[in-house]
């Protein structure tokens, strides 16, 4: 009994979000405009309330989350998720159902509770965040699958609702069918994993795999299962070969929803990858060369899984960046860039605990902020009621919208990885993790890709600030709602200011995955800062000792 209560207590943030979702759905049906207008703020209040609840109900000592593969993940990363969600929600204020609300307001159409979509939209927004939040504390495969679907299903509807146009509906249908296919693939993978281990609980799977690894290697069934799972999850993170939907769907949806799609499902997919690969474990970053000459990690991920991840990471980065080069539409460009960023993050996934996974978490947070800022510029400006989309719209933005042009430049600079900005540190952290884990070629590929990416990101920096206004950009005005622009400014400020808090953020990210590493090797977790400090200290003491000997 107490177990159930304790378990439920850890879910208080999610329950808060659920209550908020119900509330939003109800309030959105109100006849009174004021009440309907309050819905986004109810959503934000819910998110903030959940944020406050996280530290109270997800103790970092791991006692409340015993039995989880990564017990500290919930208490730390949920905060990052909710913070980005607040920003994403600001982005939607007054945008999603603009036409409908305008029609109601001007009296062109009578209020119709069946037609209004505000309640649904924000309810689904919160439900999707709930799903993402639940992924963090997934205990078994069923939970993980349900949480992932809870994250994704609302997004299909959000895409359809986001614009009254056919393009959005087409995008939603594509997204839904392909998403269903991907879910089928990873569900099949789950089934194989269950077949190979006989358990659904992640920690038990880890024990089984460790046993298998010590007695002749992980079973082939599990390897195939894991590969299928990874491939299926590639859809969520928009990685090759499951990335094809991204450009069409991102372009079809309204900019605030696109920003949402680029963060929430991606975060869910990355967390799921971390948990699932964690069952096989990365333990022992040092590699040995086996009899046939293959480099094999000791007791780590099976070589085929690593190779598949390598291939996925390389393809994703390259296809994403190369695809982005050709685009004239900023949204499509950012869609491809989102694909490429998944590729970068996979480096951290391959590198494993603690640095690699911490780098992924940090990068997800950073990406959420800088990507939201970039989309905020598209969402915050409009031409004749349509959000701006093409590169020509951005040209010479400085002349009439200096603030937004700076936000776009900062966001693009950060996405590119320009040194003092947030994105640079995220990328650096990922690359360091990759190098430490011995995946130097992958890091080199990523660096080359970053250079290619600079080509199109620099256009996003240069066009608004340096170039002359184009005929299209002359007709651009501020959007109806000021809040998307506020979100953009907040994001841009974050991109500049957050690097000042690098150390605490890195430490928090490392803490989030430290529970796994502790279980991994009880003495000194390899790859952590503490371990490095230990190692260098022992080196220094050895050097001292040898000096003393020679002196004697």
């Amino acid at each position, binding site marked *: 009994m107490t177990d159930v209560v304790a378990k439920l207590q850890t879910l208080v943030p999610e329950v808060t979000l659920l209550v908020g979702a119900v509330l939003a759905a109800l309030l959105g049906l109100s006849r009174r405009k004021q009440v309907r207008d309050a819905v986004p703020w109810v959503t934000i209040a819910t998110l903030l309330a959940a944020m406050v609840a996280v530290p109270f109900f997800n103790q970092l000592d791991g006692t409340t989350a015993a039995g989880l593969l990564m017990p500290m993940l919930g208490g730390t990363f949920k905060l990052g998720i909710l913070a980005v969600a607040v920003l994403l929600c600001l982005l939607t204020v007054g945008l999603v159902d603009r036409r409908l609300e305008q029609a109601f307001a001007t009296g062109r159409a009578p209020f119709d509770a069946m037609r209004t979509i505000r309640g649904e939209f924000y309810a689904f927004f919160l439900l999707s965040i709930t799903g993402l939040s639940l992924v963090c504390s997934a205990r078994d495969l069923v939970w993980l699958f349900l949480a992932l679907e809870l994250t994704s299903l609302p997004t299909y509807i959000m895409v359809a609702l986001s614009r009254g146009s056919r393009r959005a509906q087409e995008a939603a*249908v594509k997204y839904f069918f392909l998403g269903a296919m*991907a879910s089928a693939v990873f569900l099949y993978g789950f089934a194989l994993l269950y077949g190979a281990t006989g358990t659904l609980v992640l920690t038990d799977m880890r024990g089984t795999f460790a046993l298998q690894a010590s007695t002749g290697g992980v079973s082939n069934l599990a390897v195939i299962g894991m590969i299928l799972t990874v*491939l299926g999850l590639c859809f969520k993170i928009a990685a090759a*070969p499951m990335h094809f939907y991204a450009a069409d769907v991102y372009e079809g949806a309204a900019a605030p929803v696109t920003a949402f799609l680029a963060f929430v499902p991606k975060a869910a997919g990355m967390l799921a990858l971390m948990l699932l690969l964690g069952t096989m474990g990365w333990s022992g970053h040092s590699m040995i060369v086996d009899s046939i000459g293959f480099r094999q990690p000791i007791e780590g991920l099976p070589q085929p899984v690593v190779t598949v991840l390598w291939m996925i990471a390389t393809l994703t980065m390259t296809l994403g*960046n*190369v695809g982005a*080069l*050709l685009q004239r539409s900023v949204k499509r460009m950012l869609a491809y860039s989102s694909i490429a960023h998944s590729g970068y993050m996979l480096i951290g996934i391959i590198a494993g605990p603690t640095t690699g996974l911490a780098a992924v978490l940090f990068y997800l947070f950073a990406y959420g902020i800088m990507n939201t800022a970039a989309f905020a510029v598209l969402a915050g400006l409009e031409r004749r009621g349509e959000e701006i989309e093409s590169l020509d719209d951005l040209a010479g933005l400085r002349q009439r919208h200096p603030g937004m042009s700076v936000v776009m430049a900062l966001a693009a600079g950060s996405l590119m990885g320009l040194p003092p900005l947030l994105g640079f540190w995220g990328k650096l952290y990922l690359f360091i993790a990759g190098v430490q884990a011995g995946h130097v070629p992958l890091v080199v590929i990523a660096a080359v890709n970053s250079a290619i990416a600079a080509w199109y990101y620099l256009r996003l920096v240069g066009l608004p600030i340096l170039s002359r206004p184009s005929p299209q950009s002359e007709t651009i005005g501020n959007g109806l709602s000021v809040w998307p622009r506020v979100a953009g400014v907040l994001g841009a400020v974050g991109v500049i200011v957050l690097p000042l808090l690098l150390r605490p953020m890195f430490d928090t990210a490392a803490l989030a995955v430290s529970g796994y590493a502790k279980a991994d090797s009880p003495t000194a977790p390899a790859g952590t800062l503490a371990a490095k400090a230990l190692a260098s200290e022992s080196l220094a003491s050895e050097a001292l000792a040898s000096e003393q000997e020679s002196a004697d």
Partner: protein
Amino acid sequence: MTSLSLHAASLAAMASDQASAAVPAAVAAPQLAWAGWILWLPLLSTIACCLCAAFRVRGKAPAVITVAALAGSFALTLALYGKVQHGPVRIHLFDWIDLSWGSGAGINSLTANFALYIDSLTLIWMLFVTPLGTLIALYASEYMEGDLPARGGRGYARFFAGVSIFLFAMGSLVMADNLVMLYLGWEGVGFASYLLIGYYYTRPSAVYAAKKAFIMNRIGDLGLAAGIWLIWLNFGTVEYEGLFQALAQAGSDESVGGWSVKAIPFLLMLGAFGKSAQLPLYVWLPDAMEGPTPVSALIHAATMVTAGVYLVARMYPAFLLHELALPTVAWVGGLTALLAATIGMAQYDIKRIMAYSTVSQLGYMFMGLGVMTSFGAVYHVFTHAFFKAVLFLTCGAIMHGFAGQLDLRKLSGLRRLPGWKITAWTMFVGCLCLAGVPGSSGYFSKDAILAQAFVTPTPDGAWSFRLLGWLALFTAGLTAYYTFRVWFRVCAGPVHFEAGDEHHGADHEPAHQAGHAGHDAHGGHDHGGDFHPHAPRLAINFVLVALAVGAVLAAIPYFWPAYGDGWIQQMVSHSSAAAGVPSHGAEGAASAAGEHGGSHATLLGFDPHTAMYVVSSVFGLVGIGFAAWLHLLNRKAADALRARLLANPLTRWLPTAMENKWYVDELYIAAIRKPLWFCGHLFALFDRYIIDGVLVDGTARLPKALGRLFQPLQSGALQGYAVTMAGGIGLILAWVVWVWMRGMAL
């Protein structure tokens, strides 16, 4: 308690010093962390001045803040001197750079913390940098009035922000505990100098001068940076503490000496020559006079330009790594002194004359370092800081009062003008010191260098130090001549002046009523009587007097507390600047007592240190005599002499070349700037057509072509996407199975 324990430690260090002839080991002194405020105060003042500029403060707040902060720094320096005396102590402020990489035997580290290394050399420098900074900031508070926002100016706060950041950088340079922090300060003072030379940024000549100074310094800084890198490469540390130990070992170890070690002193030298305006990099300093005069006095005469001397003195042990390093320093210094003096003789702009005299005097300092009297060099830095500051500030007062007039042919008889007495007579004191008139501070410090040139035996392979000594003596005569040429022309003689072309307008007039008193009485030939020179007021006069007194009193540390072993001598002999100077103090004492053996060098048959008092007096007085004849008693004779030299085809080149600064600028333009300009344009064309055209655009086409290759996959049809995704999954699975079948390790 603390100072007692420090004394004990430094005494112990001294004892070991005499045994090993190495630089004494430093004591960590965390209890002296308050010394960091010597740096933080100017830094805070910089921030405050910037805020004043941002919020458009109209009053003199920036000046008040700066003067207060610098005075605070001075007070703290005095307190630090009281605690430390000779040092050396290390005061850790905060971790800055602390890296280590590699493992086992190949472990490398680079540690450069923000820490202070306080020894007697540091203290000497800080003891003249901070008070001079304070006084000159005070002077500037009045001098820069025209730029107050209340008078339509815009740069008052900017000026004081520049002065404050300069003092911060100079403090970091001098008090640094490692070469990286020294480099930070080194670049910092260069940056402040750039800002302040270009202070009147609407004037093209000022912008040009600022760029010239910056670029010339870059050349030197490159040498310094390379030198620091080689030091780290060879000795594995950039912290003085470890470095001096390593250098002491290297000195006794003959096997040390690859080219990368031998090159270190020459690279450091290049940095020092750039910063201290020596041949061949001296040309920026005279142009730097485009900045406001207090800046010229503070940065380009008293403090920043002595950073090169400081570097050589601080890194003295490194200059023993190559036997020809110090002779090179000596000869470059001596030749610079001579060249600059000859140019200074023929200039008409009094501020420029002072600039060339600064170059010349810096040459003396380097010569002193080169002939192994680091004491003489440091003492000359010390005295020079005071008397040159006086000279510059009097020039500034004249420029300020006469609307930018600096031509010595258009100014005369200032000492008879009401309100200008203090200026004229403080300038006289400065001239006495610069000319090396017997009894003045400059006389003693210069003699210490000159005499040593005759004492130190010339190393093998170097040009004779005795020849250098005679050259320097001749230069001393020239110095006396051009110094008093200025004073006799400007301050003595009949009253006569013309205004410069910088009419400040009516806004200055009310503030200078004092200067106008008696204006109608004087017999000046001002243009139509519409120009009123405004005499300096309280702040300027106070600073002038204070500095003149300082310049006179600067002679005292030569004698006190003991003759031949004065305060400066004691201070220098306890620092790294004494390394390699064999029992310096003892030799000085011995020479004073006349106990030299027969093998010792002589000057005209006498002991050089004794004889120099007489010989240099003679040279100095002869120079002053010439100046008095040509520029006071018979001014027509000077013009006649020049005319006669110009008339004779054999001698025509002499005055022409001297007046045109030996065409060095033109030479540099022809030999360096023009070829670089040509290369630059060539590279620009290369960049435009080959790099941009072929490489960049060509490379960019590749990913684009790749993108087009994959574009058909992105058809937009749902079925197509589903098939492609399934195909992708299928391919990957097929690959896995294929590898499996081939029996490879999975």
